[in-house]
């Protein structure tokens, strides 16, 4: 069964791993100054932490009961559709002079909408 406390510990550990790998990759890159394939590998090192975080979230979703999954479905739907609308609108607005939206900006948008969606869905079923 889903236990929020355990989930937050696991997710926090995965995010800590991500931060450690991010700093380690930067340090190694400066120290070794690699090129070609090794440079790409070092730049991708933090993604390992992100994969662990994603796996933690998937495991949590599988442990949830049906109402908790419904809440997450509502929240993820809001996040998915909201991000689609924002990025499409931004893409059109770029033609009018708005700065280019980097790929790194997409996830924070999705995560913020996911959080807002979770709060709204929990209020609906409270």
């Amino acid at each position, binding site marked *: *069964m889903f236990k929020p406390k355990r989930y937050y510990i696991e997710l926090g550990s995965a995010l800590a791993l991500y931060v450690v790998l991010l700093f380690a990759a930067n340090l190694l890159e400066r120290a070794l100054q690699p090129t070609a394939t090794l440079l790409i590998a070092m730049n991708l090192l933090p993604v390992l932490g992100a994969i662990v975080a994603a796996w933690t979230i998937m495991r949590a979703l599988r442990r949830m*009961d*049906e*109402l*908790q999954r*419904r809440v997450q479905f509502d929240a993820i739907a809001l996040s998915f559709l909201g991000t689609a609308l924002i990025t499409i609108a931004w893409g059109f607005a770029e033609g009018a002079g708005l700065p280019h939206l980097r790929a790194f900006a997409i996830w924070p948008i999705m995560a913020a909408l996911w959080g807002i969606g979770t709060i709204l869905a*929990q209020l609906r*079923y409270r």
Partner: protein
Amino acid sequence: MNNRLKELRLARQWSQGQLAETLSVSRQTVNAIENGRYDPSLPLAFAIAAAFALKIEDIFQP
């Protein structure tokens, strides 16, 4: 969907947490069903009926 979950639970002097543990769901889920904000799936409705040793139609009414 209307239900008698709260009435039946209180009659047995079970807390929401106890019932939730029996059903392997969260306490919030029991609360949402009792308040009519969430209609359980058929498997969960069967589990609820089994926990109270009643028929589904004795607990849930359309």
